[in-house]
């Protein structure tokens, strides 16, 4: 028996649950960041096979929505021929 009145359920279980979902969220953000850098590199490499790109004129942006996210890629492709002489696609 305790002299201190106890509430039936403490706040610790709530903290525990919040912490779990926070950590899941943190982890998904990290994987999101990884995904973006992977996409960036692969798209970059793909386009560079066919066209010359100015690395300073590339924009990758993710707008996160509730059920889906939008990936916007803005790449400026230089006029002229690609380094290996293949066709240039814009």
């Amino acid at each position, binding site marked *: 028996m305790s002299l*201190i009145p*106890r509430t039936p359920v403490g*706040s610790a*279980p709530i*903290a*525990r649950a*919040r*912490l779990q979902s926070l*950590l899941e969220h943190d982890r998904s953000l990290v994987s999101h960041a990884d995904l973006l850098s992977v996409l960036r590199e692969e798209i970059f490499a793909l386009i560079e096979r066919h066209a010359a790109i100015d690395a300073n004129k590339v924009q990758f942006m993710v707008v996160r929505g509730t059920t889906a996210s939008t990936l916007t890629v803005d790449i400026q492709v230089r006029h002229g021929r690609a380094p290996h002489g293949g066709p240039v696609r814009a």
Partner: protein
Amino acid sequence: MGKVIVVTSGKGGVGKTTSTAALGAALARGGQKVVVVDFDVGLRNLDLVMGAERRVVFDLTDVVQDRVKLPEALLHDGRLDTLYLLPASRTRGKEALTEEGVARVISELRDQFDWVVCDSPAGIERGAMLAMRFADEAVIVVNPEISSVRDSSRMLGLVDSKPLKVEKGGRLDKHLLITRFDPVRVACGEMLSVDDVREVLPIPLLGIIPESEEVLRASNLGAPITVCGRESAVSRAYVDAARRIKGDWVEMTVPSKDKGLFMKLLGGRAA
């Protein structure tokens, strides 16, 4: 060759400085030669907790920038023969610390001391990264509180990637130090338990430090809790933790609620 330990947490106010002073003094009490280094450039609190604030003339930044030699900046603790302090600068910013300079100073300290205990600033910015850069071991300080646990989880990831030792293919020994633990609140279900914290931070447990007014008292007096509050539960917990750092096996005791409850009924917590 001494070992370099970084005391870090991410979140501020969880007890890094208190723990640095307490662990440093406890190691020195055991006869080890110890220096505690304040990396919190711009704020500087370790000298206050150690009670050395009026004796500070030169600091870590002065040594890093080669304005003075290391012995000129080191302060000897008056109470323990083998305990020294390298204070931080209050006037200079974090930019004043270069990685090369810090590397040189830490290497000099490593030659002269058994333990180099670095008090990291809060946050995950440059200062905190420099404090862990040359560490061999890390003490992650955490409160059983949601934001502290989350920040420490983030810090664990950094400790696994940022130190030089890791870049060279090594691993840092990591220790979890739970501070401000209140057994009464845990028993009432109002505070995360030791298991809850360890589930998120699965590294070896260094110690569990109970919440206590003794910590504030020690800070008021300007002495590490392991020096001025030798008989307190907090001091004993830190002394045990220091022995575990040295590699001794010491049984882990979770602060019990009975004593806490007793204290609470006596009004001890309100004192």
